């Protein structure tokens, strides 16, 4: 139920100086955060809902707000990441952003960047993948390339999106590996909300000048991107795996350091919300966690022992951390904005694996596909059914069963050659 509005009247005269925090669009906030990291080459190809980010950055470069940076407008996402690959290999801090089909169109380069260990940072404004064409938010794009060897971080809020970008550059360059920061399309990218951006000086202290691990340089020539045959390919892949595991160690350290530096707890592997004493723990990634937290507050008020795990680091997948966070729960509910047709929820599959040594059941809730709203009430209803042990293994939130059933019937009635 809604609480009645109780607004406090404005206190004193309105300050006409820029406050520490600002009410700005998520894309603008991300663009400014990226700008604070002083990228040297930014390349972009527009795709909804990533557009505002690169528009802002292009303007920042044009106006001189972001100095010493090349902004390259390219003809495709494939080219965008390729330009970033070249720039990074030549020793520049490189950044790009995309969404959905764009990520798929650059897929080959996504694998290539990680294979060559180039510390590129990319923002992914998460969006569904067609067909049917759909411009709205879900996590299908990130899931499609979850195994490309990049570190994948999911932001819950625009504030976290900012913070994750600052941490992403550090992580990428320390380990020499690319990092993707996933931000829910529209829901975060187009939302105006309060964010706090650190000062350039603070960021300069946080993020040292880019020192590439390897660089194309006539003074010390190297061959990058050699052909590796069966005799060594496994070793290369194993080393990539090791690097991801190292990232798993480094991410919480960086988060702690970030907290100490900027006074904000963000990033890391995962966060828990009211998991103390929780029988049911909901696990999700990205912006849906805000609604989940509201729902949990509501259910807790009603005596439901429920909590949440907000997963920030999806790749490398933190099996141990997830298992630990869910250790005391009697059941886990994974709410995720993606569906692997014929399999179910990919995040739920990972969580199931994390809990393989326990008897804790994992319930999968597929929600928000293609931008379908996820109302708090619907979530509460699901969680209540879970409490009552009525939840099926996989639930499709607010699915229009009548439409589905009608289509199934029609499908079954069709036979070839008639």
């Amino acid at each position, binding site marked *: 139920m809604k609480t009645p509005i109780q607004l406090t009247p404005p206190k004193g005269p309105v300050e006409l100086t820029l406050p520490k925090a600002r009410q700005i669009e998520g894309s603008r906030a991300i663009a400014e955060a990226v700008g604070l990291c002083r990228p040297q080459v930014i390349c972009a190809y527009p795709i909804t809902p990533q557009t505002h980010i690169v528009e802002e950055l292009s303007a920042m470069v044009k106006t001189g707000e972001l100095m010493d940076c090349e902004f390259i*407008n390219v003809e*495709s996402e*494939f080219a965008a990441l*390729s330009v970033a690959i070249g720039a990074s290999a030549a020793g*520049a801090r490189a950044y790009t952003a995309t969404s959905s089909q764009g990520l798929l169109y650059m897929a080959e380069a996504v694998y290539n960047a990680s294979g060559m260990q180039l510390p590129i940072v990319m923002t992914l404004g998460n969006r569904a993948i067609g067909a049917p064409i759909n411009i709205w938010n879900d996590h299908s794009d990130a899931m499609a390339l979850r195994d490309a060897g990049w570190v994948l971080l999911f932001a819950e809020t625009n504030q976290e999106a900012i913070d994750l970008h600052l941490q992403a550059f550090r992580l990428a360059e320390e380990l020499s590996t690319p990092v993707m920061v996933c931000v829910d399309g529209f829901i975060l990218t187009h939302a105006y909300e309060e964010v706090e951006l650190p000062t350039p000086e603070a960021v300069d202290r946080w993020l040292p000048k880019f020192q590439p691990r390897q660089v*194309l340089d*006539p003074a010390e*020539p190297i*061959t990058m991107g050699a052909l590796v045959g069966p005799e060594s390919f496994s070793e290369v892949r194993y080393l990539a795996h090791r690097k991801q595991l190292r990232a798993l160690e480094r991410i919480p350290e960086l988060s702690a350091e970030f907290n100490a530096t900027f006074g904000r707890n963000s990033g890391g592997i995962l966060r828990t919300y009211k998991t103390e004493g929780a029988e049911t723990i909901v696990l999700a990634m990205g912006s849906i966690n805000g609604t989940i937290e509201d729902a949990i507050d509501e259910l807790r008020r009603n005596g439901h022992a429920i909590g949440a795990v907000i997963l920030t680091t999806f790749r490398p997948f933190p099996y141990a951390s997830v298992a630990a966070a869910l250790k005391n729960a009697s059941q886990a509910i994974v709410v995720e904005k993606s569906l692997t047709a014929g399999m179910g929820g990919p995040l739920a599959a990972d969580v199931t694996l994390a809990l393989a040594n326990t008897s804790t059941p994992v319930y999968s809730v597929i929600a928000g596909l293609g931008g379908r709203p996820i109302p708090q009430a619907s979530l509460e209803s699901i969680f209540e059914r879970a409490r009552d042990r009525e939840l099926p293994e996989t639930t499709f939130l607010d699915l229009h069963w009548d439409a589905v059933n009608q289509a199934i019937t029609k499908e079954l009635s069709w036979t070839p050659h008639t």
Partner: protein
Amino acid sequence: MNVEAKETMNVEAGQKIKFYQTGTLTVGNRLLDEDLRTVQASEERSNAITSGHRACQGCGEALGARYALDAAMRAANGKIIAVNATGCLEVFSTPYPETSWTLPWLHSLFGNAASVASGVAAALRRLGKADIRVVAQGGDGGTTDIGFACLSGMFERNDDVLYLCYDNQGYMNTGVQRSSATPPTARTATTPAVGTAPGNIFGTGKDVPRIAMAHGIPYVATASVADLHDLERKVTNAMQVRGARYIHILVPCPLGWGTVTNATIRVARLATESGLFPLFEAEHGEIVASSPIRRAVPVEDYLKIQSRFAHLFRPTRDDAHLAALQAIADKNIQRYNLLRNDHGNDARKEAA
């Protein structure tokens, strides 16, 4: 050399003796000043791609790459970064643990060499290293087909990259399949010499140098491993310019074309002398020069030494297709005025 000889050479320098027994056509010429010889004549050449690579015997691409890159290296005082598309050149030069490259070199993907090079160029500009120049290179597949969008983008933005297309007219790395640069009627693994119209389709063609010109970029040229001086001059010209530049180099493939391994340069020469592969230069979208044919030959002379065209001659002669191929050559000859009468030494002396 004795004193008298030196005097002679001085006399010569100031007077009208400009002719050398081998003119400016051989790789070197002991009678020329060293700086007028080709880069390839010099032991100091950079050997951008060095020995031990696994290219086939008589590989035109290995040769073309060294020709072009060594010239670029000279023009840029050795400060070159090369970006390579996937393909034969990449595969035969960099199998772990050995690389044949001696310059900084990056291979990313099949279709993105132009974009990766754009990125390298952007980084260098931003890092204050604009004295380091960027060369992108790929085969015809990586350039005219899968890499075409990236190439066009690089052109359109006028990024400071010299793109070298080593055209061997097919996907040789994967076993000789057809590309959009494969000539009509040619037999490849995907255009077999069977049926009523054997070999590659007689389409409308895809003239990438002219497409490059349509972008209005500062410099476009075609070149051939059969004319080293011309090739090096064009690479050198290209290196004098900033912005997007494109050189399309014909590099015969003995395996794919079905020629004997020693015929690589000869067949490239015949391609030009027949008019099928015109050599020209363009600046800002306009043709500024073409190389006249020295010794004109009918296209048949070019075709008949390649087994990929064998079906045009055996078991029966395919006059219709031979005429159609000759018509392509004739069109080039007309378009680029290749049979004009200023060929030979004069034109080359000017060039030198």
